């Protein structure tokens, strides 16, 4: 069970590559590896916390008010994370800006609350939140790294390309997000079809 939860979250049911949830922050903040990592980890923290709390109290919440109840819990976690980031990682918080509060409406978080945490034990929900969050972080990080290296010639703000390299600006602009995400989807499909073919 635990192994399946982890595998689902990280790869086979990855929030971005398979479920295609939460694409708004994915497209918007992956202009660099640091931003992608920061956003991914913030979402992971929210997801883990909200999954745990919701699985603990889900059976006491009447069915007709469960969505507002979940949203209040998620919003509470997001605001706490927002304040902590502002206090400890001020410059990263400034870059991510509005996208941190917007984690509240990230459908991955509500999706996991409704589809998993409300029906499973706290321990499983905690593991599920962590693995889905890390899967999301990895997807964001890959996209952010590609966009930063190709669009700015840097990786974690360190120059990695030859000085003659002329950055392909479109990679860090909004259209680049769509293009690169498309390439990543294609790459994932290719790997999956190879794995299937071998079996």
């Amino acid at each position, binding site marked *: 069970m635990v192994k399946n939860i982890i595998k689902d979250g990280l790869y086979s049911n990855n929030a971005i590559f398979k479920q295609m949830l939460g694409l708004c922050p994915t497209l918007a903040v992956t202009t660099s590896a640091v931003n992608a990592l920061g956003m991914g980890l913030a979402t992971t923290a929210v997801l883990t916390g909200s999954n745990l709390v919701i699985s603990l*109290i889900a059976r006491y*919440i*009447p069915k*007709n008010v469960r969505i507002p109840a979940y949203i209040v819990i998620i*919003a509470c976690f997001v605001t*706490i994370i927002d304040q902590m980031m502002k206090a400890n990682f001020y410059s990263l918080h400034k870059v991510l800006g509005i996208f941190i509060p917007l984690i509240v409406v990230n459908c991955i978080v509500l999706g996991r609350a409704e589809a998993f945490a409300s029906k499973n034990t706290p321990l499983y929900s905690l593991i599920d939140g962590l693995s889905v969050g890390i899967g999301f972080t990895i997807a964001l990080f890959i996209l952010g790294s590609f966009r930063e290296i190709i669009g700015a010639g840097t990786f974690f703000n360190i120059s990695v390309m030859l000085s003659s390299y002329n950055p392909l*600006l479109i990679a*860090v*602009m909004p259209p680049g997000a769509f293009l690169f995400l498309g390439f990543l989807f294609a790459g994932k499909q290719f790997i999956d079809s190879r794995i299937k073919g071998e079996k």
Partner: protein
Amino acid sequence: MNSFFKSVFTITIITVSAGIMLALSYSFTKDKIAYQERQEILNAFKSILPYHNNEPDKDYEIINNQKVFVAKDNGTITGYAVNIINTQGYGGAISILTGTDSKGAVYGIAIIYHSETPGLGDKITNKSFLDLFQGFTVNDKIAVKKDGGTIEQFSGATISPRAVAAGVKDSLTVINGMIGK
């Protein structure tokens, strides 16, 4: 009716506990956040003003409805700074902090925030661009080359540098009003 009250009761409990959690987290982080925000302003002043050992964000006078921050070294005025928000940027408002020496010549410029196009207009935050303004006074023509000035615009982006130039020009006018007083 019973289930109605149960719903209301549950939501009330959840929102009240969420409120308590938020109050706690706010009281734990608010000092640190205020400190970070202030530190950012002080660092910006350090980078655009000549040496000073006062706190310019607390030491200001109001000229034409604009705060003129005064930098002092042991009480001797070493420079002035003005924060102007120019709304003529390509992506909206650009907040420009201009620092001068005690005679009103530009010492340093910092862009506090902007929403210019990444890779094109956002080059206004480059040091090499901001350094072009050094030494300008209110009597100089501060404009991009396209408008007959000396500031180099970037290929594909004239509007952003033009907005910065206008902002610096306005700041110098305000600072000049302060010096002339």
